[in-house]
């Protein structure tokens, strides 16, 4: 942004005016060694613009300059400029020379005259002090005495040629108060290398000053109208903000006051960020802002609540109905409520007052409710600039700001037009969803810089015991909220219950079948055991018979005293000897 860093193009050298914003839109200031025409009606700041440029040149660039005053005395100009803190009184005539070019009232004009003499005097002075810049302020006053358009034109050309010849960076101011003047001095606009128009307009009772660069030979420039203000530092363009956006950034999160919203934002708002809550009337924007303020106070942080259009007590009462209690914090002094009307004498003054209160209370969290009240009543561009400047100021102080903005419907064009959306780090949009004969509040996060965030719509529910967010359901391509959501939840709960019951029935059936199988298994196992026992018994029986065969037959034989051949013959009488024949084989 800073033009100081860029090397001047050899084709067109420029000199900085030191007027905040002007050097930016002209990409470096006024054309060096050339003539700039400053046009404007009375009270537009032509003299201030010119004098400021000279004073800055003397102070910042160690230049010397001459101010040729055709309209006012040097003393008068100096005393008028005293409020700007340029400290002109400290400058010597060798640094800034005032040439009083007013003709005394007793002067009588007889015939034509010219400026050859004046330029000769000035030339001597330029050489004497080595001046680089010169201003001709209100030359039309003198030229009007010529009462001859051709002569006036001739003298203007004379000045321009003289400036070129001298290599001076010149500013010529010219009153423009109507078509007549435009015709009379219109040619100037063609001969000058740079033309700056200062305007003064009144909108809805508030005064606005604007500046527009009409022409700049050999250079690009921003051709828009820019609002200007007269501050203690002099004239400045208001919408440029700080030329460098170098805020301290924090990773710390600040609770939104709604747990689920914190979750949607992955932990809350960033500390020091700008939050915009937009939405139609009654979508609980103030409630969300109030929750943020309450949460901030609960953490023990100094907090400020700026409301336009609604009184502080009314806000406190209304928020109490949704269990947001601000009153204790107001009493303890932790929370500063500030209510004001948007229709003031001047929007700049209003923000100036706000700044003073912010400095005094020094809050770390701040609510502006609603910021859009400013833009709806006043000129959009001017108020948005003022608002932006105010927000920049807050951001510079590291204050976390929640702004509400009134929007009808979901038309986001308006908020974009006010320019507020572009400086908001987090933008939450509240809307109504009308469905099945009811109106429900829906919350969406439009954007949130530097943090992941939920893309889902949530339903905001205000209840006596507080504020909650609930999921919304999408069924058959429709978002369900309110009663429809309740119905859906009930139906799905019933369906789930039915399913659970069916499952349980099935489980029981299976358990029964399992039990049956187990029982059957038990029977079989018993049978198995019985058979096994039987087999064992049989085996034992057979074993005893065999033993008799092998060991006792001989004994028996011995007992009977029979022949060895008769052993087999005698066996059939024994029941033991019969068994191998009947079963044992």
């Amino acid at each position, binding site marked *: 942004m800073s033009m100081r860093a860029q090397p001047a193009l050899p084709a067109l050298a420029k000199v900085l005016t030191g007027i905040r914003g002007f050097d930016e839109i002209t990409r470096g200031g006024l054309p060096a060694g050339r003539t700039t025409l400053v046009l404007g009606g009375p009270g537009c700041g032509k003299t201030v613009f010119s004098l400021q440029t000279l004073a800055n040149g003397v102070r910042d660039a160690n230049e010397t300059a001459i101010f040729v005053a055709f309209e006012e005395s040097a003393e008068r100009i100096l005393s008028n400029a005293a409020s700007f803190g340029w400290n002109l009184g400290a400058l010597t005539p060798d640094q800034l020379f005032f040439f009083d070019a007013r003709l005394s009232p007793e002067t009588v004009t007889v015939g034509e005259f010219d400026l050859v003499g004046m330029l000769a005097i000035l030339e*001597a002075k330029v050489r004497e002090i080595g001046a680089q810049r010169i201003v001709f302020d209100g030359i039309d006053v003198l030229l009007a005495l010529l009462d001859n358009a051709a002569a006036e034109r001739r003298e203007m050309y004379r000045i321009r040629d003289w400036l070129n010849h001298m290599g001076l960076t010149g500013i010529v101011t010219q009153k423009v108060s109507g078509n007549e003047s435009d015709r009379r001095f219109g040619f100037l606009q063609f001969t000058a290398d740079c033309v700056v128009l200062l305007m003064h307009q009144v909108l809805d009772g508030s005064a606005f000053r604007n500046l527009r660069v009409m022409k700049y030979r050999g250079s690009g420039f921003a051709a828009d109208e820019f609002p200007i203000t007269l501050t203690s530092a002099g004239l400045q363009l208001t919408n440029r903000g700080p030329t460098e956006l170098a805020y301290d950034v924090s990773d710390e999160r600040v609770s939104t006051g709604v747990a689920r919203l914190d979750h949607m934002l992955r932990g809350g708002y960033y500390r020091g960020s700008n939050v915009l809550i937009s939405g139609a009337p009654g979508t609980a924007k103030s409630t969300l802002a109030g929750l943020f303020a309450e949460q901030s106070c609960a953490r023990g942080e100094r907090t400020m609540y700026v409301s336009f259009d609604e009184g502080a007590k009314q806000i406190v009462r209304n928020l109490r109905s949704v269990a947001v209690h601000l009153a204790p914090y107001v009493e303890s002094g932790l929370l500063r409520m500030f209510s004001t009307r948007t229709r003031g004498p001047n929007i700049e003054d209003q923000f100036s007052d706000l700044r003073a209160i912010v400095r005094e209370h020094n809050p770390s969290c701040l609510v502006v409710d609603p910021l859009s009240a400013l833009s709806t009543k006043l000129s959009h561009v001017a108020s948005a600039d003022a608002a932006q400047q105010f927000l920049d100021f807050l951001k510079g102080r590291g204050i976390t700001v929640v702004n509400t903005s009134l929007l009808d419907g979901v038309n986001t064009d308006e908020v974009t037009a006010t320019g507020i959306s572009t400086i908001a780090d987090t933008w939450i949009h509240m809307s109504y969803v009308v469905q099945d004969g009811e109106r429900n509040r829906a919350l969406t996060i439009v954007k949130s810089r530097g943090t992941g965030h939920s893309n889902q719509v949530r339903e905001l529910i205000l209840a006596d015991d507080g504020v909650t967010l609930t999921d919304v359901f999408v069924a058959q391509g429709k978002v369900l909220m309110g009663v429809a959501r309740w119905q859906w939840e009930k139906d799905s709960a019933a369906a789930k219950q039915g399913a659970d019951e069916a499952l349980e029935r099935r489980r029981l059936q299976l358990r029964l079948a399992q039990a049956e199988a187990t029982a059957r298994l038990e029977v079989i196992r018993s049978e198995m055991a019985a058979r096994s026992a039987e087999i064992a018994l049989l085996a034992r029986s057979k074993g005893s018979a065999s033993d008799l065969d092998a060991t006792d037959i001989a004994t028996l034989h011995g007992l009977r005293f029979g022949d060895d051949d008769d052993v087999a013959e005698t066996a059939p009488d024994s029941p033991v000897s019969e068994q191998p024949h009947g079963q044992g084989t």
Partner: protein
Amino acid sequence: MATQPAERPVVKLRLYVAGNGPNSVLARANIALFCDVENEQTCDLEIVDLLEFPQRALADGVIVTPTLLRLSPLPARRIVGNLSDRDKVLLMLRAV
């Protein structure tokens, strides 16, 4: 007036011109005519070329050229322009 020329006060004049620019040449000629009419004895005229003596012009508060100053009799008078309207110049310089 012609019968009592000696009693007429001396008119002290200083004319600032810028070189030989058209208006300066005209002013010189016109003031010379005025002094002729008035009588040279009563007309003390000094012509200053501003291009040579800018500091003098600055001291006298001269802004444009030509500028004619009537230094005396008082009150001082100041006329700017090429003095093309001689009747008006006469009126201005004679008036007391």
